[in-house]
């Protein structure tokens, strides 16, 4: 029986040591909090969804780590897409506005841009917002993002290369600066045909009535 207790104690010590090692281990290779902004931009004006000939363009400035943006994307946006975008009435444009207090916002934006390289921006956009618990943990989300990318059919070799290169950091920074210049001071912020939507209620019915009013004036 003594040998049993000795073996059990040894196993307990080994397991405890392993746990301490795991806790002390630095996080796996991934973001250090943000993608380093590059000074240059290529004039990229954001990802769009909807018809080029739509009479109304809505520009959304959003931060992937922002809970309100996630709520809008998951609760309201499906109806907006169905009623306004899919019907050809609205072209939706997404602009990055990573807030400085959000450690992984730029990294998430970059992941979405890398997905965009493979024509999967909106799919990745949805994944990042629908699986938003990553934004509450404060932990390195790089592996989760990679898994999300895989789930939407992205070629992971190309995704990895893109993330490693940080080649879209300039676009993201340019988008942020554009938002600053337009007076964006929180997320999400919307511009409808260039005009700031001042309401802080972002229900799909608000967008529908705004679009209705614009299109009826145009008739």
């Amino acid at each position, binding site marked *: 029986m003594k040998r049993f207790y000795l073996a059990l104690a040894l196993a307990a010590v080994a*397991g405890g040591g392993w746990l301490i090692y795991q806790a002390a281990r630095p996080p796996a290779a*991934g973001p250090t909090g943000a993608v380093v902004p590059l000074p240059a931009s290529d004039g990229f004006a954001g990802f769009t969804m909807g018809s080029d000939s739509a009479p109304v363009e809505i520009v959304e400035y959003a931060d992937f780590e922002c809970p309100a943006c996630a709520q809008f994307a998951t609760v309201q946006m499906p109806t907006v897409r169905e009623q306004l975008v899919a019907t050809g009435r609205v072209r939706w444009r997404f602009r990055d506005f990573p807030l400085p207090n959000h450690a992984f916002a730029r990294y998430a934006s970059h992941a979405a841009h890398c997905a965009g390289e493979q024509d999967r921006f909106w799919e990745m956009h949805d994944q990042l917002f629908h699986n938003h618990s990553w934004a509450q943990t*404060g932990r*390195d989300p790089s592996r989760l993002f990679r*898994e999300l990318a895989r789930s939407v059919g992205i070629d992971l070799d190309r995704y990895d290369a893109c993330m490693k290169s940080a080649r879209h950091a300039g676009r993201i920074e340019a988008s942020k600066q554009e938002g600053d210049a337009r007076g964006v001071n929180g997320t999400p912020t919307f511009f409808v045909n260039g005009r700031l939507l001042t309401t802080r209620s972002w229900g799909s019915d608000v967008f529908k009535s705004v679009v209705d009013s614009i299109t009826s004036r145009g008739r």
Partner: protein
Amino acid sequence: MTRHRQAIAFLSLAGLFVALYLWLYKAGVIGSLACGTDGCEVVQTSRYAVFLGLPVALHGVVGYALLLAVSLVGLQPRWLVRPGPTLALVALATVGMLFTAYLNYLAVFRIGALCRWCVASAVIITAIWVVALHAWKREQGAGSSS
């Protein structure tokens, strides 16, 4: 009987460390999971990772700690020949196995990801259940033949 309870003690200790590892990750003490795939993080950050207001992994910690405690108590001289500890181990392992099966079902069919540590826990609790059940049957056989 002794061998069975010793085996369950070892298996419970292994399960306890697996559950502790997942719980420490959930609590933010461990930065990333050594998973092989990324399924562990997907599962651990999903809404199914909380049950009755507590992290699922914490339920595992408590469950394996109980199994370990019962098996160690069952190895004490005054309990060694009594069937109570074995019956308690069978009951605990049955509950644990059903709960683990449900969690793995959620992981695969609801979340669409496979967490290897969750599978490891499922294997451990199943092994505990098999050993406990085997011990209980042997005790029943010994009891009826005596």
